[in-house]
């Protein structure tokens, strides 16, 4: 079982900060142009959201695991509701590596695995070093090819 790069916590915390700040800006605009909101509530809300985000990021990193097993990609995640997902290689439609702006700034990358299913049709493994992401994508591609099915639907 492989865990994510520790720096992924920073990534998650940063995205919570960004989201909370966007909400803060909205609250500011509402305060300015519509209903007046008490400032303590806005600031307090921002702080609570960020603290929750930090706790969540640390817990999520501790729980997140993934593994390339014989027949399937296996992922373990979820802070509140634990989920383990098995993605059989036969069912992999295609694999992407993506790097969002925040990820680029921190120097991480994600791998996204697509299946034809309805729930979890795209499964993301975040927090990988770029080299590892590329390697993982290629591994997954090879595993999917080896297990070639007639029609992955």
């Amino acid at each position, binding site marked *: 079982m492989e865990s994510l790069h520790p720096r992924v916590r920073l990534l998650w915390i940063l995205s919570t900060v960004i989201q909370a700040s966007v909400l803060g800006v909205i609250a500011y605009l509402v305060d300015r142009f519509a209903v007046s909101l008490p400032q303590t509530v806005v600031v307090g809300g921002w702080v609570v959201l960020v603290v929750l985000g930090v706790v969540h990021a640390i817990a999520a990193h501790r729980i997140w695991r993934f593994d390339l097993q014989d*027949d*399937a990609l296996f992922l373990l995640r*979820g802070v*509140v*509701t*634990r*989920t*383990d*997902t*098995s*993605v*059989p290689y*036969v*069912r992999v439609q295609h694999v992407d590596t993506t790097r969002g702006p925040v990820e680029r700034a921190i120097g991480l990358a994600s791998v996204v695995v697509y*299946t*034809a*299913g*309805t*729930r*979890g049709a795209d*499964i993301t493994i975040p927090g990988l070093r770029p080299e590892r992401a590329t390697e993982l994508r290629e591994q997954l591609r090879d595993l999917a090819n080896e*297990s*070639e*099915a*007639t029609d992955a*639907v």
Partner: protein
Amino acid sequence: MNRLHPRSAVVRIARATLQGGFFGFFGGSLGSGMFALPWFAVPALAVLGAVVFSGYALARYLRFQYELDGDTLTVESGVFARQSRQIPLGRVQNLDVEQNILNRLLGLAIVRFETAGGSATEATLDAVDEAEVKRLRNYVRTHDRDEAAETAAATSDAVSETATAGRSAHADLPGVTGPTSTHTGGAQTANDLEEPVSASVTEERDQPDGSLLFAFDQRELLTYALVSVRPAAPVLTLASLPLGMDVVWAVLRFNATLAGASLSGPVVRWLASSPETTRLAVFAVLSVVQFFLLALVVSVALTVVEYYGFQLTQADGDLRYERGLLRRYSGNIPLEKVQTVTIRENVLMRQFGYATLAVETAGYSGGNQQSSQGVAVPLAPREEVYELARDIEPFGDLDFDRSPKRARRRYLARFSLAAAGLTAVAYAVDSMLLETGYWWLTALLFLPVVPAAHLRWRHRGFDLDESVLATRSGFWRRTTRIVPYYRLQTVFVTRSPFQRRRDLATVGADTASSSSLLGGVARVYDIDEGTAKELRDTLRERLTAHVAGLRTGDRASDAEA
């Protein structure tokens, strides 16, 4: 390359002209109000709008071309942003045909091709004439059948070799019994299904192709409409009440008089100032009952309109449905593309031993209405439904394993919490706003908690059959979902904090179905954690084994060819 039918162009251009005219007219009126345009601006803009819109419609018609050639459907479209799309026919999941009233008068129909990718319909031909519909349908079907025959032949060989591993998709289905019937070609179609599955075939219908599996007569249709209550009907009724406000007020006034109120003004004033609770209660009960009766009528009417003249036929490897009173829908569902089979029985249906059968493919099906997605048999006796389901996807007798008893305690706790929460809310609202002192009435909600928890537990379960996973859940509407192992996509196990406390877990088995409403996921709720992990591993193993089985079949077919 073919164009759409000219009559459809006429309809579209006429519609565009009207739209453009109105657009110009309103734009002109608005403009002349604001900028003091000269008097002729309004008609001039109306004409301009009509010309531009109809010109665009004409250009779109002229640009839209399609062609069936070999294995592909090619569609060229777009005036400014041009698009050329090619769809391999082997990837077409289903082909749906829709006819609204206007199109029926004109003898036209809209044809939709669905594939597994993307969220929208991949190709829409709006509209072609009926002869062309037939040609398209036959072309796609023959293409499918040729392919199916190949795989079926190959897989049946493979299956006999590797007895346990692989089971052919539908080698045991009458329509695709395989090499002999198709390769000898010719007059094999109508009678190869020895016995029609449905005994309720009452009248002889015109059936140019295929054998009739199921059809509704008027009485069965009404029964179906009555027992299949649509949850959306009350909402729809409520939303459309304002349209007939006068009638609503008249009825309410009548109710008030019945309840014995001395009405000297509008109903609202009586309601607001009425001191007599019993009369108020009579009035309320009366009105609510009337409302639900109305909703029932609406529900029945909707169902009748939707399923009028329903029939399901089987031709070669395809299921073909036809339905609708005002809009006619028909479509082909290739059996080899069926992902999951779902059997639904609501409380009423279970009482009378009826059930509904739905099939799902990875494309959309059954018209564009979410409510009716993929319904293959709206209502039939349970045994017939199971028989047909086994025809589509062979499975043995299902013997469901229930969740452990502690799951029932979990439901008990959950429902009690909900009841307690509602009581608390009622208490708060009552003590702060209403002050009637009747808040404890909501405590009655605790009464059904025990039976509700028991029923929920009793109707949940799963079964690992030789070739399928079957899951079941739901009391009001019990859904039995049958998922062949070789259709599984991802398998996941989830555990919420409450489940973790009791060592329970939910196993989900995803398939490539398109309906987000019904969900492609078959879920096994609240089973023991150890069992859940075992189940997950079994599902993974069997998926690999069954897919491998199918693949050896394909190799054999390649070698043959």
